[in-house]
């Protein structure tokens, strides 16, 4: 401002400005307050949700046999917490140990479609594929494994692909897939994987002397 104003003139200018912008200021401030408070409320809410879910989950861990209702409760009331997926993974294990593959598939499928954690989702996909293969639903397993996985899962994915080929009696492809699984296992290959590969006969069955 180039020109100098008297105090009275300044007061008038401020009043005029307030008249013009007062409402928007009040609206803006209250909007900000609402935002801040709802964010805080939402934060508190997630924490309490997580805590109660965690509490229920603890009791699931302690007694898996009697826990089916609690697992369902976690899945319906606490689906947005990680504990719902954890509980479903537990349930899948319980069913599979009893030999109920169909029920295990349902639980794992729930994790694949509901979990917000990519890591958990990928893990559930691999397990789901494994149960599909065990129950001879090879096409469903193949479709699952076509998704992209982090490199870290390469060995597990190749092993499952080998299992599918083996189930289809495509021995050559199974060998290749198991070889790939072994090569990418970084020393963590299970003896099961090695046995599966060995059982298909060595492609290099005659050892040449050097």
């Amino acid at each position, binding site marked *: 401002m180039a020109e100098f104003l008297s105090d009275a003139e300044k007061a008038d200018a401020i009043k005029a400005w307030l008249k013009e912008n007062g409402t928007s200021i009040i609206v803006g401030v209250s909007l900000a307050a609402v935002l801040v408070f709802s964010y805080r409320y939402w934060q508190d809410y*997630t*924490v309490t*949700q*997580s*805590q*109660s879910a*965690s*509490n229920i*989950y*603890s009791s699931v*861990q302690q007694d898996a046999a009697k826990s089916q209702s609690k697992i369902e409760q976690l899945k319906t009331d606490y689906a947005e917490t*990680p504990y719902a997926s*954890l509980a479903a*993974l*537990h349930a*899948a*294990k319980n069913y*599979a*140990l009893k*030999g109920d*593959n169909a029920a*295990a598939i349902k639980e794992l499928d729930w994790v694949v479609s509901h979990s*917000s*954690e*990519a*890591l*958990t989702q*990928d*893990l559930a996909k*691999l*397990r789901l594929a*494994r*149960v599909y*293969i*065990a*129950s001879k639903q090879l096409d469903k397993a193949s479709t699952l494994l076509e998704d992209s996985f*982090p*490199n*870290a*899962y390469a*060995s*597990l994915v190749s092993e499952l692909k080998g299992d599918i080929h083996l189930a289809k009696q495509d021995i050559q492809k199974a060998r290749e897939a198991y070889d790939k699984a072994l090569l990418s*296992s*970084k020393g*963590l290959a*299970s*003896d*099961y994987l090695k*046995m*599966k*590969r*060995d*059982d298909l*006969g*060595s492609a290099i*069955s*005659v*050892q*040449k*002397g050097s």
Partner: protein
Amino acid sequence: MLQNIHDKAKGWVAYLIIFLISIPFALFGINSYLGGGANRIVAEINGEEIQSSIVNAELLQLKQQFAQLAGFDDTMLKQMALDRVVSRTLLEQEVKQHNYRVSDSDVLKEITQIPAFHKEGQFDKQQYQQILKSNRRNEATFEAQVREELAQRQFQTLVTSTAFIPKETATHYQGLQKQQRDIDTYSLTMADFKAQVVVTEAQVQEYYEKNKARYMTEEQVKLAYIELKRSDFEASLNASVEELTDFYNNNQDRYIIPEKRQASQIVIAVNSPKEDAAAKQKAEQLLAEIAAATRTFEAIAMSDSSDKVSAKNGGDLGIIAASDWDKAFNDVVFSLKVGDVSPVTKTDAGYKIIKLTKLEPLVQKTFEVAKADVEKDFRFEKGSEMFQDKDDELPTLAYENENNLAPIAESLRVKVQTSDWISRTQGEGIGKLAQIREAAFSEVVKNSGRNSEKIDIADGHSLVVRILEQKPAAQKALAIVKAEIMQTLSEQQTRQLIITQGEAFLKKLSAQANWNVLEIAADAPQQIQKLGLIERNNQKADPLVVAQAFSMQKPTTAKPVFSNVISPNGDYHLIALNSVKADTTALAKDAQQNFARQIAQREQGALLEALREQAEIQLYPENL
């Protein structure tokens, strides 16, 4: 006033003001550039900066764990420490991001289970607060930390506690594990074929010429050295009777036979707070019996004491060492007179009645009796002092007289000694010590010809060395290495011969699928071994042969399939796989759970790796 500044702040005055203002900004944080900031950033993980102090704390732990093991150098440990911190940080971030959060009751449960906060077997709130206070922590932050750790544990068990393999898969797994294979083997051994190989002089000559670099003597050095050894100083002491008597007089408390107290006890155990009153009453009643002499202490101990071990001996505990017992018990034992029976006493183990059965008072040994010990202690203390004085001076002296040992020896009143020839890998005398060999061939000692730094071998043993003479590496004469070369060539040629023979056999066998084609004479050194049905974990057969047998092509007809495997020692094994027998036993009870452990391990590894893969990680190991 503002107007004044406004008017005057023009030209050079304005620049001066700006300059003065900018000084604090320019210097702010400068200490982190000048090396004063000991805490530097060593990693950035998804935008979170990791300070070197965190990694250093981890490094310290690793060092305590692995320092004793060979093959762990500093760089490797630093790498490991950084790696662990990265993994941990990733885990923390993942857990936070996805709202893993443990309930208050779980946190409470965890804290009340920590033994450090227990008093008499129970969680004690006062103790808890006291321990936190003495560690300068408050309850809120400690509880938050426990909560975080628990959440991480939950995440980690995500994989391991939920891993499984389906029944069908487990059955397949067990089937492979218990599969049996019927095999025969026939071996061509190095020992049998060795006689057929003749190594000529010309071959030896040729090999020697081609591999001259392999037949060199090692470079050697002879060292002059000054050695400080506590044991030498100990031995050099006179230790006159006067000195020893003095030493004895000043340290009399060392030459005693300590007091010995033998006690017996009757214990009435208190297993739960509810039993307390009853136990106390029973103990009082037993004590009354002893006082009234209706039954002896020993008889009661035998029939009523809860401590069954001592009860057998009438309650006798043998000699009491104060450190073995709780305070209440000690206070009683060390206040009783021989033959006295204590009142009923509450201890950690319950209510006790204690009787002191024997007391041998403390005995001061005379100088004559203790003389041998006194002399040993005297020599050790004086010898250590002498060693310490000289050992403290040695580094400076070695540095100040870097080209000569004589003045050092003179100043310390020791002798300069001379070593035998020492190579990088072996030597006699001080050459046996790896630290000495390393120093002898170091840049400073070998190439610059200066004194080494002080080398500490062990507590009470240190040296400084310098080079006296050098002998460079030299070619060994053919005559000296001839036998060695003959051996090498003979082995090479035998291997070659066996492989040629073995391959020819395998070709015939594979074509005819019958051992008969080999026409093995009945008196030949090796015969066909019929191993019959073996399992994967067969311990009797050569493990290489077993492994090969279980990875061979399976026979599709009644005829066997042939293969081979070569042992590291050169023996060549031909293998016939006659048949494969599938396992038909039912799935073992725990098999499914046991097999799940393997898959859990793989899944866990993959998950942590994936976490790392998706993270943005910048490492600055040079800042460590």
